[in-house]
């Protein structure tokens, strides 16, 4: 279980959960919220893009690879195109190695096999958030020095 340190790190981390299983999304959202994370949910790739367009402050997207409509990989491409600083962690039920490799090539931060342990999930999310912060800092610093 997450300790106090984790909760401290969790504060201010905004996560978007994307999966076609609404029951899974809702429970995961509550569990993340309990650990101090702000979690939005979307049941499709299209909805996820809408949420991202509305709420610019999302840090990490947890994205299911296998979804009806816009697939996880397509959604990833669009997210990275529109919001390059947002980190994406792929959630995959199928151990589709090719999908994971493609995802990594397309800019995904990492991948997780569903169902996953909360500790693993949190660890990945925090790593992703840390990288995003680092990249934002670099971008801001780079922008400050022409």
């Amino acid at each position, binding site marked *: *279980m997450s300790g106090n340190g984790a909760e401290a790190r969790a504060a201010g981390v905004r996560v978007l959960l994307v999966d076609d299983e609404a029951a*899974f999304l809702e429970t*995961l959202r509550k569990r993340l919220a*309990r650990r101090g994370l702000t979690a939005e949910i979307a049941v499709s790739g299209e909805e996820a893009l809408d949420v991202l367009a509305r709420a610019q402050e999302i840090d990490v997207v947890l994205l299911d690879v296998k979804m009806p409509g816009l697939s996880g990989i397509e959604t990833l491409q669009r997210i990275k195109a529109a919001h390059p600083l947002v980190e994406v962690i792929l959630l995959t039920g199928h*151990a589709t*190695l090719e999908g994971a490799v493609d995802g*990594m090539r397309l800019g995904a931060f*990492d991948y997780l096999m569903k169902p996953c342990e909360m500790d693993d999930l949190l660890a990945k999310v925090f790593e992703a958030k840390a990288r995003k912060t680092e990249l934002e800092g670099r971008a801001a610093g780079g922008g400050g020095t022409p």
Partner: protein
Amino acid sequence: MFDRHYYKSLTRSMVLTVFLVSLTPLALVSAITSYQFHTSYKDRVNAHLRELVLKHKRNIDGFLAEKLAVIRVLADLIPESRFRDPAALQAILKSLQDRHHGAFVDMGLVDAHGVQVAYAGPLRLERARYAETRWFREAMRHELYVSDVFLGLRGSPHFIVAVRVRASGAEWILRATVDFESFNELVESVAVGQTGLAYIVNNQGEFQTRPRREAAVGPAEMRGILARASEGAGRGDFSPESAAAGIRMSQAAVALDVIHGSAGGGDVLLLTAPLKDGAWTLAYQQDEADAYESLYHARNLSLFAILGGGVGILLMAVLVSNRMVNRIVEADRERDMMNEQVIEAGKLASVGELAAGIAHEINNPLAIMLEEAGWVLDLLDDEHLRRHESHAEMVRALKQIRQQGGRCRDITHKLLSFARKIDPTVKLVQVNEIVRDMAALSDQRAHLANVRISVDLAPDLPEIPASPSELQQVLVNLINNAIDAMERGGELKVSTRLEGASVILDVADSGMGIPKANMARIFDPFYTTKPVGKGTGLGLSICYGIVRKMGGEISVDSVLNQGTVFHIRLPLEEARA
């Protein structure tokens, strides 16, 4: 599958087919050529014999006509009274004998009553009476007459050439006897080969010459042949004129019969030609075997050649068929083995697909169940629930649910990774790139297991023909195995290098190593040393299958408690069947 009876009958039918296909044209060509040769050769021999007989017939007819003509000339020029003078007749006979090489034996003048009024010759035949003889009656009826051969008064074979003369108001016969021996020699001189025999018979089949050997046909049979031969041919009086007409006869006048089963045993060719205007027949006989000797010799030679060729073809057919059937046996055995492997692989694949379907369907509900259990555990963490008397029991039960759910998840993940479809399409791939990808992909897992992954890649490695998916599968399996082998963490090194015409890929770990006893079986399917539920025993056998399919080799070196290195040798050239 390896039915000996089937292969035996296959060998038989192949031998038969090869034999027939090879021999049939040979036999056909030989038969046609032999038939053509046979026919034309026989035609040529027959034509030659006909020509020979015809020529001889002309000679004999000429001989007879000449003798007749001489007597006729004498009768025309010399008055009858001169013939009555014995001294003059003797002088004429002497002259005839001198000019005709002794062909004439004697001469005589016979009156209308058949009394020989004058005679010159070696016998004492003055006043001999011929009134009752056949030749005299025939001579009186014809102007010119050549008699059959007969014994007559002298008791030795001879024949008479007679001319009817009208003088002093009466009819006379001027006759001369032809020497039988010289005539016989003339007839017999035609003999060709070893069995050639010529003779003359009259209409009754009676011999007019004396053959050296027994003739092939008796008088009765000969009469039949003569009757057939002379069908429609009218019989006129023989004269120098008719003999001259006979000389112009064509080969068609010569009849050819084949006498089967003669006294000599074999078939006999019998050629007959009319002589003396059909009164006599020149017969020429020769054994068929003798006449066609060269033909039969050639036929025997070619039969021998065909027989030899046939035996050769048969031997070759047996040899070639045996070799081919042996190859087929070998190929069948290999095919059967392959089939078994394919069936096994097919079974495995269908089991895998079924398992994957179930795993996928279970995976999502399982994820929800685990999340829900986790959520309840989260809630039980609340202050007011902690005080509940059954709190500890509820937490224990939920943890048990999560633990068992975790087991289910591990199983579904393994099933899915085992059954996931691998694209076997071969293209040129850069091994280094795949190694880098896979190392990166496994980095998180390695990190959690306290394993450090390093890569040592040879630069400028050539591309090799392979399926990227399959190669990824091989690397992931080997890397996962290596991580599992290092329970307390360690080093995992993946290296590549070029060696001859192969790319060498090594995956080395610093794990527990493989005991010698297990080494022989590590590539066997379903062989695993991992705890129940942890390993399927398929990883290394899948790697083995993939590498072998690529024409490569996979081997392993391991030292207990020091580590294991898997060596994969991948050929630069495609080696797939």
